[in-house]
């Protein structure tokens, strides 16, 4: 009996099985791709969110640091300046035409004459009431006791004084230590080369801590003995 020749082509059943296998393979590939895409999407979304959060945080942290106008950075001043500095708060202002008894010597603020003292170098004592008005406008006032200070020291004081918004004048009776004063602040020193004096100028010369910074220190009255 002749056996039927072996058919080289697969049976229908086989063909179906292969087709199913291929479909399954394609489905698995598609699923894997979809899974990968989902993962990439999630990573992408997280990346974007973190990037935004990082950027926003950085901008907020770096951008939201308004400098305090009242006090300069400690890196700009040195040594024992801060310990020696005397600071006075709630200093009264206002105009009076009468003599004023000031709490500090030399004064660092308080009621004052309507006319400010023009800034500059003077070689005789000045009226407190006019000089205090200049402090209100952001000037500093360098004072020395004429009985305790040599001509060389006076020349050194004049040399270190800024050319504007500064009064240099003798103040009899304050003793050996010279004083540099601004509205609400004072530093005493005995050496004209004391670096704390420059620190004081950095912090208080024309400082926004004075009541009327940038108001003039010219155009009012020249006191007696104005040298320059």
């Amino acid at each position, binding site marked *: 009996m002749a056996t039927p020749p072996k058919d080289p082509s697969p049976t229908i059943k086989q063909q179906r099985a292969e087709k199913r296998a291929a479909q399954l393979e394609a489905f698995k590939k598609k699923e894997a791709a979809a899974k990968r895409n989902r993962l990439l999407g999630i990573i992408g979304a997280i990346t974007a969110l973190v*990037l935004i959060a990082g950027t926003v945080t950085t901008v907020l942290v770096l951008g939201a640091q308004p400098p305090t106008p009242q006090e300069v950075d400690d890196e700009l001043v040195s040594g024992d300046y801060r310990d020696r500095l005397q600071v006075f708060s709630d200093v009264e202002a206002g105009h009076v035409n009468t003599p004023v008894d000031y709490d500090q010597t030399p004064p660092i603020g308080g009621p004052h004459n309507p006319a400010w003292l023009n800034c500059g170098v003077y070689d005789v004592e000045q009226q407190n009431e006019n000089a205090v008005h200049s402090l209100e406008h952001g000037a500093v006032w360098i004072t020395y006791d004429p009985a305790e200070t040599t001509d060389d020291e006076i020349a050194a004081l004049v040399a270190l004084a800024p050319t504007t918004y500064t009064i240099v004048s003798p103040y009899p009776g304050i003793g050996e230590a010279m004083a540099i004063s601004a509205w609400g602040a004072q530093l005493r020193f005995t050496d004209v080369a004391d670096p704390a004096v420059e620190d004081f100028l950095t912090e208080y010369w024309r400082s926004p801590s004075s009541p009327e910074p940038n108001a003039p220190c010219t155009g009012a009255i020249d006191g007696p003995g104005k040298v320059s």
Partner: protein
Amino acid sequence: MTRPRGRLVAGLVVLGVLVLAAGFLGGRLSSGTSATPTTESAAAGFLRDMQVHHAQAVEMALLVRDRTDDETVRTIAYDMAVTQASQSGAMYGLLDAWGLPQRSPQPAMTWTQLPALDGSDAAHDMDPGAPAGMPGMATPEQLAALRAASGDEAVRLFLELMIPHHEGGLEMADAVLARTSVPQVVSLATGIRRAQEAEIVAMRNLLAALPVAPAR
């Protein structure tokens, strides 16, 4: 399954850190455009010196205004005093907003020795012996002479002092424009240039129109 997942988590953490760092850098760079000038920058130096320069101009303008009835001179003096006082306020405010002291850590005009932005401009010529160390400033004696004068004589002195004062102002404005790109300072210096250049022409005309000066 746990090991690949563990690796995935570790990878994500590393990625997260990297991205955070990138975000920080991005934020830093983008906020860097608004970084404030330093205390030794040309911008800060100019804002400090120009306030001193302007203060003298305001004083001289008000002096001559009190010493003449010439309405043309009084008007130009009024313009100078009010404009320069207002510009001074802007300069003061910029330094204050940047947290910088008004006091310069260096002598006047030191900032003009900084290199120019385009690298072409050599250090600006400085004259430390000039009054207040700045170009065009009047001496205390010249100011005293103006204070003592009146009428046409005061006007003549004023113009003879203010023309070089303005020329010095132009020199300083040019020096900072060559050395800064801080927008507020560029805008201020450009405005100062424009105004003072025009005023120099006007002052030269006024000086030429004055009666012949008496022998001094």
